[in-house]
Structures are given as structure tokens and as C-alpha cells.
């Protein structure tokens, strides 16, 4: 873009470039920048009385002084990181199998099977899990029928269930970038690794993972963002102790009419996610341009 406009002199083409960029600029301005500015303004005011507001940092102070909000915030971040790590650990072998082991039709079939659950909405998928895991659900009945347990078992409404739901929901977003990056790895490199006396572990560590790093990073970023911003899964599967930060924001906005603290929380979530992604990139020595490019 920069080269193209730089090499051509005269205002005519610059205008053309500008026109071409207009949709993007409008998108950024109207749908990203302006709403965020508005959010920031709202988060920095305090309700005085009916319809009267004044500038204040109350909402942010409130967040830092109330352990409840803190705990939810930290809990959401840790659970999201854990879910991302689990998705990676489960998704990597699957992707490797699809990309390197399977050939021809089997490959497309496997890939399609990863894709199919995502043809229905997240809500339906979550309800599916609820039907399976609830006390009067499929798994509970099966266990009783098989004589493994005496009474009904409740598997819903705890942290493990939330984790299962989150990993399941985001699996595809890990598998797709990993398959594409592993596909681009030349098989002869792996063979060469074995020829030079490497074993499965050293080949994976020294050849496959370094090559797959951009895919791993982009998969992790997407999965982490989706998990952190997920509302349905923690809410439905977590039940009485779900405690997810997005849920907190939703409650502030919709049931408490407290747009001020809702906006402040929204901003804090933005800061948190940016910070964690930045840290993750630093630690894995990746850059954002490598990852998305």
C-alpha cells in the first residue's frame, strides 16, 4: 500500500487510494473508535441524582476496592489461559494427525468432522452438553444402567464442566490454523530428522514445533479471546458459581442499569486481554505481524 501510493505522483491516485480505504476508515472510526471513546466517557462519570452525572473515577476505584470484582477478573483470566493451554494440548495431536498422517479422503473427512459441530449455533451446542451431563441426563442414566453408580450423578454446574464446554467450543479455532501451518511443513524435513538419529520427541521439539509456532500463537490468541469474552458457556454450564467477567459486565448493563461501571469493566477487560496477549507474544518470541501475516 505504502509503495503503491508512494511511487505514483499526483493527487488523482492518492484520492483513489483514499476512496478505497474509506470503508475501512469508516469502519474503524464509526464502529471501533467512536464507541470506545463513548464507553470511556461513560465509564468516567458518576450518577449524582435523577439524570445528573459528574466526572469521577468512582467506577474504577470501586473495581479495585471490591474483592468480588477482582476475584472474578482474575478467575476469568486464569480459567481462560488454562482453557487455551488445554485446547492447544488436545488440538495439536489432532491437527498433526490430520495434516501429516492422514492422506486423501480420510483427511477431508476428519477435517469435516471437526467442522460439523460448528454448523449449529453455540447455544445449541451448549444445550447439547447440558442434556448429556445433567442429573437426569444421558451419561447419568448410562452409568446407572451399567451399574457403575447407585444414584443419579450431577455433572453440571462446576468448574470442570465450564472447562469442558470452553475447550469444546474453541477447538476448531485452534485446529484450523494448526492444520494449515503443519501442512506447509515439508515431510522430508521430518524424515531427515529421523535419519539423523532423532526420536519422536526431539523431532517434535526441534522441527515441528518451531515451524508451527506462528500457527500456535495465532490459534492461542483467537481461542484466548473467544474464551475470555465467552458469555453463554460459563453461564449455562457453570450455574450457581460460574462467575465470569463478561457476565458481570452484562449484569451491570442490563439488570443493574449501571452503564457507568459496566463501561469501566468493559475497559478493564480490554486492558486485560491486550496485556495477556502481549505477554504471550513476548514469552513465545513471536510478533503480531508474524502471527497474523
Amino acid at each position, binding site marked *: 500500500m505504502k509503495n503503491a501510493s508512494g511511487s505514483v505522483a499526483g493527487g488523482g491516485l492518492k484520492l483513489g487510494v483514499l476512496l478505497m480505504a474509506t470503508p475501512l476508515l469508516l469502519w474503524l472510526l464509526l464502529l471501533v473508535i467512536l464507541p470506545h471513546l463513548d464507553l470511556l466517557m461513560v465509564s468516567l462519570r458518576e450518577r449524582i441524582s*435523577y*439524570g445528573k452525572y459528574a466526572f469521577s473515577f468512582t467506577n474504577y476505584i470501586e473495581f479495585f476496592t*471490591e474483592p*468480588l470484582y477482582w*476475584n*472474578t477478573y482474575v478467575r476469568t483470566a486464569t480459567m481462560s489461559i488454562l482453557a487455551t493451554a488445554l485446547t492447544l494440548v488436545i488440538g495439536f495431536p489432532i491437527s498433526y494427525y490430520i495434516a501429516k498422517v492422514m492422506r486423501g479422503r480420510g483427511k477431508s473427512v476428519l477435517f469435516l468432522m471437526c467442522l460439523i459441530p460448528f454448523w449449529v449455533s453455540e*447455544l445449541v451446542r451448549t444445550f447439547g452438553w447440558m442434556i448429556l451431563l*445433567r*442429573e*437426569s441426563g444421558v451419561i447419568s442414566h448410562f452409568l446407572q444402567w451399567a451399574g457403575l453408580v447407585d444414584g443419579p450423578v*450431577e455433572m*453440571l*454446574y462446576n468448574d470442570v464442566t465450564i472447562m469442558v464446554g470452553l475447550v469444546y467450543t474453541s477447538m476448531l479455532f485452534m485446529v484450523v490454523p494448526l492444520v494449515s501451518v503443519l501442512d506447509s511443513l515439508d515431510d522430508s524435513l521430518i524424515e531427515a530428522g529421523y535419519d539423523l538419529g532423532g526420536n519422536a520427541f526431539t523431532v517434535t521439539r526441534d522441527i515441528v514445533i518451531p515451524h508451527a509456532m506462528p500457527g500456535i500463537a495465532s490459534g492461542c490468541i483467537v481461542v484466548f479471546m473467544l474464551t475470555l469474552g465467552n*458469555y*453463554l458457556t460459563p*453461564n449455562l454450564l457453570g*450455574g*450457581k*458459581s460460574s*462467575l465470569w467477567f463478561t457476565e*458481570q459486565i*452484562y*449484569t*451491570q*448493563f*442490563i*439488570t*443493574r*442499569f*449501571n452503564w457507568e461501571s459496566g463501561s469501566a469493566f468493559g475497559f478493564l477487560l480490554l486492558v486485560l486481554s491486550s496485556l495477556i496477549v502481549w505477554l504471550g507474544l513476548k514469552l513465545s518470541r513471536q510478533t503480531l505481524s508474524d502471527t497474523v501475516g
Partner: protein
Amino acid sequence: MSKNTGSLRATMFGVSALAGVMMLAGTAQAEELRLLTWGGYAPDDVIQMFEKETGIDVEVTLSNNEDMISKLRATGGGGFDLAQPSQDRIAGAQMEYGIYKPMDLSKVDAAQFIPSMLAATKTNTTVDGKVYGLPHIWGTSGLVVDTKKAADVKDYTDLCNDSVAGKVSYRLKRPTLIGFAFAMGMDPFAAYTDEAKYQEILDKVQEKLIECKPNVKTYWEGGDALLNLVRSGEVVAAMAWDTGGWKLNNDNADITFVAPKSGALGWVDTFALPRKSENEDAAYKWINFVMQPEIAAKITASAGNFTASKGADDFAEDKLKAQFKNSFPQEALDNIKWYPPVPAGLETLEGKALDRVKAAQ
């Protein structure tokens, strides 16, 4: 106050539906009434009769109290021609956000309303001498109980009994706080105007609810989810709306609605005009239409709750009337605690208490 889930999905759907409706409005030929209401309050057969009589199309958006206020607040009272918030949530929202416009009482046929209910609703929804709401449907919340398996549940606090441990559900919303406060011998409504005293009550209720948390299977959100929990037997006692209990009673005679010893909580859903209502005439036509006794009885059959229409009881189904009598002997009826208007600011206190309950381990 009925069966709609107030989920984010629903909100998003509502917003996109709203956008769609606004786009269509420019090209639409027929007159249109955009109604923001609860599930069951505008059944299809009533809408069809109304369209036939007046030629006005009715566009229904399902919602709940908080969601209605949020939607109207976001648009400054636009996007809908008639809304149906509960009577206790009008005055506060009007003073705070100015989302409604006063009712023109001369356009409404007052003779169709039950006089006592009309007078009470008018008083509760008056701001600066102007009336903002008229009564439509009323009902209560209390306990839905499997009388075989949880015979000892007679009041809200009985939900914390060991006999029903792990088989209880209620919402984490303001009616729960208020119900528990009454059951614990306090009067939260009397403390509405005194924030310090109200906070004191909330602290005690919060402590009780935290103590009670191990008993709870899950905090329900949508009415349908709760009905499923009770129907499957996973929950044997819950705090819920009367109509839910009666619906379950149709399938399983053991389950019914029980008016708690400390009093069921009575609500009245109203008609209110959003400030930027574009078709007020249609709104008044709808009000007068649905308040006719025969029509009101149809709505009762669909929503499961009785209306403020005078004489509609004669047309209501006998089964529902019997269920109502069963749940509400005369003294329980007299003991209903009707919600007074909520002063703004209390919801923030309540919200924090609820958050702490949810966060407690």
C-alpha cells in the same frame, strides 16, 4: 413477568430485530404497532383478531423488566409504540431516564378496568402529577413445590432446609432478596425510603443466602429452564411465578404453586407509552381491544395469569380458576405483598448483595 430468558442472545436478537423493523418502517404500507411485552401477553389469535378489526399489524418483541428499561434507555424511548413494564418499575425509570410519555386517560375506556387495580396502578406510576401506566396483567411470585417430596417447604426460608438440600432453585434477582427478607420477619418495602435501613436488611438476607447456597442446585435464569428442572424432578422446591406452578400442575398433580406463609409477592404488568412512540393511536386501540373481557380471557389462557379486565373472570377456564383458589385461600390472598415503586439507587445496593452471594464459595 413470565417465561422469557433474558439472555444476551435474546438481547442481540432483539436489537437486530429492532434494526430490521426500523428499516422496514420506511417502506411499510400498513399501519403498525410495535409492542414490547412479555411471553404470552400477545397471543397469535388475539393479534389476528386485532388486525382484522383495525387493519393494524402488530409486531411483538418479547422482553422482561430490566431488558425493557435497557432497550428504551438505549434509544431514548424509541423503537416501540407500547411497552408493558411492571408497575413498580415505571416511576423510577421515568425520573431517571425519561423514557415514557404520560397516558391520555380520555382515550382509554376506564370502565373496562377493575376499579381498585386501576386506581392503585395510577397512584404508583404517577410522576409530577401525570399518570404513566395502566394495569394489564397481574400475578404473584412465591414457591413452586413438589408437595410429595418437599412437604415441609411453606416459606422462602424453608428452601434452606436440610430435607431439600441440593434440590432447590431460585433466581439471583431482587424478588428473592425481598421474599427472604419478609420470611425472616423484616419489611423491606417499609425501608424503601431509608437506604441505611434497607442496607441493614440486605446484609442479613445476604448472609442467609450465602448460608443457603450449598442447598441450591443452580440459580435459574429463564422460566423454561426452571420448569424443566422441576419437571425432571431435579428440583423439588423453587421460588417462581404462580403461573409456572400451575402449568406444572397440569402435568403432575403433586407439583403446584404455594403461597408462602410470609406472603406471595404481587406484581402488576402495565401498559406504558415509550416517549418516542410513533403510533399512539394504535397503542390506545390495542389497550381498549385487549381489555374487553372475552379477549382478556384469551390472554389469561395464554399467559396463565389473570388480567385487570372487569368481568374477564367469567370467561376464564375453570381449571385455572380452581388452581388459583387452591393456591390462594382467602388469607393468602389478603397477605399478598404488592410491590411499591422502587426508588432509584436501591438497585445498586441490591446488585452488590446479589453479586456477593454469587461469589461466595
